């Protein structure tokens, strides 16, 4: 949505001065004791311990330190502090130094969507959302929050969206892409109805694939290594895209926007055109799919830059950017502080100059709207 400068309320930030918007910053909970007071009392006892709540995760250990050249805080006694645990550190050492004016917080809890204990998952989401608002978002205009939800119980997920739906500090609904079922299934539709009711994009983030309640991380079984697991993750998005288009999610919710985090882009043209080709012959099974599937995909899905595939020749990237209409659909994401796949700015050096401002600023403004520019306090 573009609002003429003259009509813009004085309280909104001036979008023309923004240099970069990072739509994926993984802030870290280093002390679950600080989150506990925000968790409903009945389940608080399950998380109020130093290591946090018990969470099913993939069983792989990352190779190396995992943070790339992210500035590390000084050691605190014997333990090494986490580079994304302190909002002041993140602002000064990352945002200010790299020229990023706004960052959307996405937690480190992307496996919440696969936790079998659904009430605990919902309680964690609730506690983390309130903690994020109070400790990161309210005090800092450079941070915006995501409404983290546990989709395995859509009813509680909807209630959580309703709690924050009008909060200017929250700019999207966030959930893990791993879970019990393809996301087009109608059990999830109330979540999408809530997203459009509050004009909030839905963000999907890989992370829980193969763990907890989810199926194996690939349709043929469990990967053996982190290397194989991470490389396989875009398959989640392929399955969800096909499911959401086929099940008519975008016919029911024509204003829904879906942001795909950390999945790359080069596989998208394949999905679009395989799907279009088959639709011509097979559309009668899902007659509500009225347009070629690629049109729904281009209208409703948005991609993020980290970790952009390392194509051996920039011309391959340029072709793919054209195919996915990157001038509208691609947004800069840093994945801070998980820079083990490279520096997020160096990674996009081959993105053409003509697209750069779209990718760094304007596409995010179009996707998230005025909430990005609004002060983080209500009223």
């Amino acid at each position, binding site marked *: 949505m573009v609002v003429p400068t003259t009509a813009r309320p004085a309280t909104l930030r001036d979008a023309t001065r923004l240099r970069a918007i990072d739509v994926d910053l993984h802030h870290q909970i280093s002390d679950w004791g600080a989150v506990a007071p925000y968790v409903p009392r009945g389940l608080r006892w399950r998380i109020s311990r130093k290591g946090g709540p018990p969470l099913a995760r993939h069983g792989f250990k990352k190779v190396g330190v995992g943070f790339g050249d992210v500035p590390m805080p000084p050691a605190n006694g014997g333990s090494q502090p986490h580079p994304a645990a302190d909002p002041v550190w993140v602002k000064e050492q990352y945002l200010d130094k790299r020229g990023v004016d706004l960052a959307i917080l996405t937690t480190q809890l992307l496996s919440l969507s696969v936790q079998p204990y659904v009430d605990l998952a919902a309680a964690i989401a609730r506690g983390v959302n309130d903690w994020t608002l109070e400790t990161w978002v309210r005090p800092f205009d450079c941070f915006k929050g995501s409404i983290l939800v546990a989709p395995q119980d859509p009813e509680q997920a909807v209630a959580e969206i309703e709690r924050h739906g009008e909060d200017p500090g929250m700019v999207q609904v966030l959930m893990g892409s791993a879970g019990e079922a393809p996301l087009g299934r109608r059990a999830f539709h109330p979540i999408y109805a809530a997203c459009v009711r509050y004009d909030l994009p839905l963000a999907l983030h890989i992370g829980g694939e193969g763990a907890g309640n989810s199926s194996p991380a690939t349709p043929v079984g469990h990967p053996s290594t982190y290397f194989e697991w991470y490389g396989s993750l875009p398959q989640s998005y392929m399955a969800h895209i096909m499911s959401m288009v086929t099940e008519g999610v975008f016919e029911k919710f024509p204003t829904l926007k879906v942001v795909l985090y950390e999945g790359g882009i080069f596989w998208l043209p394949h999905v679009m055109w395989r799907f279009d080709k088959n639709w011509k*012959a097979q559309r009668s099974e899902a007659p509500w799919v009225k347009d070629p599937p690629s049109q729904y995909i281009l209208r409703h899905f948005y991609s993020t830059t980290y970790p952009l595939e390392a194509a051996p020749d920039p011309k391959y990237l340029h072709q793919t950017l054209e195919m996915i209409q990157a001038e509208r659909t691609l947004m800069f994401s840093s994945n801070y502080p998980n820079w083990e796949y490279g520096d997020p700015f160096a990674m996009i050096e081959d993105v053409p100059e003509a697209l750069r401002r779209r990718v760094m600023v304007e596409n995010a403004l179009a996707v998230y709207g005025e909430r990005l520019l609004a002060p983080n306090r209500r009223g």
Partner: protein
Amino acid sequence: MGTHMVARVDEIPPGGRKIVRVEGREVGVFNLNGTFYALKNSCPHQGARVCLGRVVGTTIPAGVYEFQYSKEGQILRCPWHSWEYDITTGQSVFDPNVKVVTYPVEIVDGQIAVTVAT
């Protein structure tokens, strides 16, 4: 261009069809409830003999999770790749611009007359 008598009316009963050859091309003549239609026997996709396909109905575009099976007897499904065409217009179900070529049909003295352009 010419008009050709391709069959007697009583040769093609309702729901029936006849493949005829007119000026070097094959044409499918269909009887839908007493009205005759002529379509070129060539699918715009890859040239299959589309008029040999099954005559069926289909689920027309509808609301989410609604199945409205209609146009029974009016949809021609190509035998190669299952693209569906409306016999009365030649248009595919998925894109009106994807069409099987159609020819005007008249009934003259109990004969079916098909007019083709050269």
